[in-house]
C-alpha cells in the first residue's frame, strides 16, 4: 500500500501524458483534469469509501481514487455529487457533512466547507457564486463565494432540496421531500438571492432538464411515507412538464408503478434537447420531448444507480452499482442503446459531470 501511495503522483502524471491528444491542444497534460468526465462514487454508507473517478471521453481507462491519489487522504463517506465552478471542482461528501474544493487542473485540495447538514448538490450560478442544496427535512440553499469558499447567504426552500437548474436569471430548485414529502419547486432570483416563486409539481421532484422548446421537465420520484426507517406507503412517479417562466403545468406523464419500491433520481437530455432519458424500475427509458406517454419498453434494460449524457456526443454513460462492497461500472451506450464498453470505477457510482 505504501508503495502504491508513494508512486501515485507518477501514475497520475503518466496517465495525463498518455491521454494527451495531439489534435486538441486543450487536452494536454498542462490542462490537468480540466476536461473529461468526473464520476462520483458514493461508496457504502458508513464505510467511508467514497471516491471520485476521472475519465477522458476518448479513453477507455479511468483514474480511480483520484482525490486520495493526489491528496494522500480518503475523501469521506457518501460522495454525493461533483460540480465545476470556473477552475474549481466542488465535491459534495454527504455523510461527511462537507464539500471538498479542489483545483481542477491538479485536483489538489484547496479548501473544505464543513459543518454542513445533509449537503446534496452544487450549481455554479456564475464564476463568483454557487448554490448548495442542503437539508433532509426543511431545506436551504447556501450561497457560496467561489473565491473564498465561504457561505455568504442562506435561502430558505422546501423539504429536501436536491438538483437545481439555471434558467435565465433564476435558479429552480427541486424540493424532493428529503426524508419527508414535498411537491414544489423553489425559484430563486440569482441577483438578489431571494425566493421569487414557489411552483407546485408532481410528488417529490428531484431532478430537472430543459428541452429544445424551453419546457422544464421535472422528474418526480413519487410520494413515500416513512415510518422510522421503513416505508409505510408509496405512490407512483411522474414526469412533470411545465413552463420555466411561470411554473404553469403543460402535462404530467405517469412513469413507474406503485409498489415497485423504486424512486427515480436521475434525468438527462441529449445535446439536441429532443430526447429525455430517465431511470425507472427496469432500466433506462427515453421519451421524445413531444410525446405524451412513457414508452413502456426500456431503452437499456439494466438497473443503473445513476447516469449522464455526454453533451457533445450524446452517448449515455450508465453507472452500475452491482454491490456496495466492490467496484462499480461505467457502461457507455450509443444514443440508440447499443453498448460500447464498460469501465471499472469506484464503489456505488451515482453521478457524472462532463467538462
Amino acid at each position, binding site marked *: 500500500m505504501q508503495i502504491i501511495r508513494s508512486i501515485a503522483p507518477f501514475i497520475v502524471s503518466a496517465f495525463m501524458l498518455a491521454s494527451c491528444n495531439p489534435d486538441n491542444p486543450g487536452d494536454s497534460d498542462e490542462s490537468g483534469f480540466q476536461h473529461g468526465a468526473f464520476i462520483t462514487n458514493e461508496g457504502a454508507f458508513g464505510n467511508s469509501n467514497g471516491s471520485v473517478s476521472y475519465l477522458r471521453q476518448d479513453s477507455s481507462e479511468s483514474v480511480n*481514487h483520484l482525490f486520495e491519489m493526489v491528496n494522500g487522504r480518503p475523501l469521506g463517506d457518501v460522495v454525493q455529487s461533483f460540480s465545476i465552478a470556473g477552475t474549481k471542482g466542488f465535491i459534495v461528501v454527504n*455523510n461527511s457533512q462537507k464539500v471538498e474544493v479542489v483545483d481542477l487542473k491538479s485536483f489538489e485540495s484547496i479548501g473544505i466547507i464543513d459543518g454542513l447538514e445533509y449537503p446534496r448538490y452544487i450549481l455554479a450560478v456564475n464564476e463568483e457564486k454557487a448554490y448548495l442544496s442542503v437539508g433532509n427535512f426543511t431545506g436551504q440553499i447556501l450561497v457560496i463565494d467561489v473565491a473564498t469558499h465561504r457561505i455568504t447567504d442562506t435561502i430558505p426552500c422546501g423539504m429536501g432540496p436536491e438538483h437545481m437548474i439555471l434558467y435565465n436569471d433564476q435558479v429552480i430548485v427541486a424540493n424532493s421531500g428529503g426524508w419527508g414529502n414535498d411537491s414544489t419547486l423553489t425559484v430563486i432570483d440569482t441577483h438578489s438571492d431571494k425566493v421569487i416563486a414557489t411552483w407546485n409539481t408532481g410528488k417529490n421532484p428531484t431532478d430537472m432538464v430543459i428541452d429544445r422548446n424551453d419546457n422544464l421537465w421535472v422528474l418526480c420520484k413519487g410520494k413515500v411515507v416513512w415510518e422510522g*426507517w421503513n416505508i409505510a406507503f408509496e405512490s407512483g412517479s411522474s414526469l412533470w412538464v411545465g413552463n420555466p417562466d411561470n411554473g404553469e403545468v403543460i402535462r404530467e406523464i405517469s412513469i413507474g408503478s406503485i409498489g415497485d419500491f423504486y424512486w427515480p433520481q436521475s434525468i438527462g437530455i441529449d445535446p439536441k434537447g429532443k430526447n429525455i432519458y430517465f431511470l425507472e424500475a427496469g432500466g433506462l427509458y427515453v421519451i421524445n420531448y413531444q410525446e405524451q406517454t412513457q414508452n413502456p419498453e426500456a431503452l437499456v434494460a439494466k438497473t443503473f444507480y445513476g447516469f449522464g449524457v455526454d453533451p457533445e456526443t450524446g452517448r449515455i454513460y450508465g453507472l452500475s*452499482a452491482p454491490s*456496495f462492497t*466492490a467496484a462499480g461500472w461505467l457502461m457507455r451506450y450509443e444514443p440508440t442503446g447499443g453498448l460500447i464498453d464498460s469501465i471499472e470505477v469506484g464503489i456505488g457510482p451515482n453521478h457524472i459531470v462532463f467538462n
Partner: protein
Amino acid sequence: MGKNRKPAFIVFLLTTFFFRWAVDLYAQDIIIPIEQITISGYAKSSQSGSFQSIRIDSLQKGRYAISDLATLLKSETNINVTQYGGEGSLSSIRLRGSGPSHTQVNWNGIPINSPTTGSIDLSLVSSLMADEVELIYGASGSLFGSGTFGGSLNLINKPDWNNRLSFMIFGEAGSWNHYKTGVGVRTGNDSWQYHAGGYLQSSRNNYTYRNTFMPGSPVERRTNDTLKTSGFQQHLFLRLPRSWSVQAGMWLQDRDKDLPAAMSSGYGNPANQQDQSFRLFTRISKIWKKSVLEIVGSRFADSLLYTEYARTTNQAFRQSGLYSGSSSAGLSGRWYPSNTLTFEAGSEVESQKARGSSFTGIMTEYRGAAFGSARYKTEHLTFMTGLRQVLLSGSQTRTLYSLSARYEVPGINLLIRGQASNKFRLPTLNERFWQPGGNPSLLPETGTGVESGLEWGQKSESGSEIQLSTTFFFQDIHNWVQWVPSGTYWSPENIRFVRCQGFEASGNYSGKIGAVRATINSTYSFTESLDMNILSDNTRLAGQIPYVPRHQVQSRFSLAFRGFEGFLSYRFTGSRYTTDDHDPWLMLKPIHIADFSMSHKLFLKENEVLISFRVNNLLNHSYQLIRAYPAPGRSFLLSMNYMFNQKSKIYADN
C-alpha cells in the same frame, strides 16, 4: 424439595419475575412481548468431539474480572474480533474466515444468537455472566445445530458443591472516565448452591485519535461515545432426592450507548442505542445407573431502541425499535451400556419471533430437530459420530452428520485428532422478512469442513511444562447470504461461495526459576477465506474476503513471584481488505498491540485482595478494526478485587 432449599428458590423466583416485569415495562411502547423456548443436549461441549478448543480459565478471566467478551477475546486469544471503535461498540467474531453470524454463542448449551441478525454483539456479553468461557473451532452442525461454520463460543455456569459462602467486591477506574464496579455472592451447601452477581459500568470513551480523513491527520477527540451498562445474573443449582437435579439461570442486562460517527463524519447527527436482554433457562436432569434424562427449557427476550437526534436542535427525529425473542424446549437422553460406549438421542423445538418497525407484524418461525450420537472411548482412542435431522417452517429439512476421532499415542504424549462434518446456517428473520427487501425464499447456507491436528505435551519433575499444537482446517461455504442492491433497496441473496482454509499453531511453556514462575504462550494463525465465485470471464475471483486477516500472531509472557505477577502481551493482525474487490486503497493497515499489567495478591486469613494495574495499547498504536472507526490508544486501568472466603470458588478467583 428440602426445607433448606426453599429460601434460595424463593429468592431466585422473586428476582426473576421482578426483572422480567421490568423488561416488559421498558419495552411496552415499542414492542409486543413474545414467548420463547429453547432446548439443548449435553453434546455442546468441547468434550463431545475432536475439535480444537480454547478454554479461558479463571486466571485469564481474573485479568478482566468483569469485562465484555469482545475485550476478553481480543486480549486473551488470537481470534479475529472486529469492533466499531471503543469499549461497548458493536463487536463481532469472525472465526476461521467465516462471518459474524457463523459462530454460535451458547449460554449453558442454549444458543443466544439474535434471531434477527444471527450474530451476537460481543460487547453486550459480560464475562460476569459465566464461570467459564470455551471456544470450539469448527463445531459440527450435527452436534451444535445452525450457524457453526466458524465454531461455537460457550458460556458455562457450574456449581462448587464445597462452597458455603463466598463474596466478591470489584472496582475499577481508568482512562476516559472509565468506572466499573461489581459484586458477587455464592452460598449454599451440598444440596443447593445459589450464585448472584451484578455490575455497573460507565465510560465516556472520549479518547484521542488521528483523523486520517482530514488534511494533516490531526489528533481529534472522540465524542458521543458514552457507555452506561449494568447487568445482573443469578443461578440456582439443586440436588434433589432420587438423583434428580435442577439448574436454573437468569440473565438481565441493560446498555445505554451513544453511537459515535465514523471519523469521516464528525459532524453527523448524534445517535443512541439502548439494548435490554432478559434470558432465563431451566435444566432438569434425572440420573440412573447407566443413563441420564435431561429436559431443558428457555425463554430469551431482547429489545433494541435506536434514536437519532438532530444535531442543531438535539431533538429526537428518528427512532426505531426492535423486539426479538425465542422460546425453546428439548428432551434428551444418554445411555452408557458399557464403560466405552455412550449413546445420546433427543429432540428440540424452538420458536423465534420478532416485531419492530422493519417488519409487517410479528414475524415467527418454528424450528425443530431430532439428533443422535454415539461415542466409543477407550484409554487411548475416542471415536464419535453424530446425526441431526432439522425441520424448518415450510417443511424444509436438512440432514447433518459428523465423524470425529482422537488418538493418544502411548508413551510419547502425542495426541492426533481429526473430524469431518457438514454444517448449515438458517436464514435469519431479518434476511427473510425485512421490509423492504427481505427474501422469504432464501436457502440455508451449507458447507462441509474437515480438520486435523496434533498436540504434544511434556511435564518435567521440576514442574516445567511445554505444550505444542497445530491444526489444519478446510471448509467450503455455499449460498453465503449477502445483501445486494435491488433497485432502490437492498435484498439478501444466496450469492457467495467461500473457501476457508489455513492452520493454527501454538506453543506454551511454563517453568520455575527459583521462586519465580515464568509462562510463555505464542499462537499463530494463517487463514485464507477465499471468495470462489465465478466471474463473467469464467474465472474465479479467489480473493480474500473483507475483514479477514491472513496472518495473526499473539505472544504472551508472564512472571509470577510470591503473589506478584507481571504480564506482557503482543498481538499482530495482518492487513485486511474492506471490500470484495480487494481495492488496495481501501485496505486496513496491520495492527501491532502490546498490553502490560502488574498485579499483587494479598492474603488476609481467609480473604484475599487482588490489586491490578494495566496499560492497554502500551505503544499507543493508532489503528482501526472497522474502516473509519478509530480504536482507542493507550489507556490505564487500576482495579481492586476483594474476595471473602477464598476457599470457595468465586468470580475472577485466581
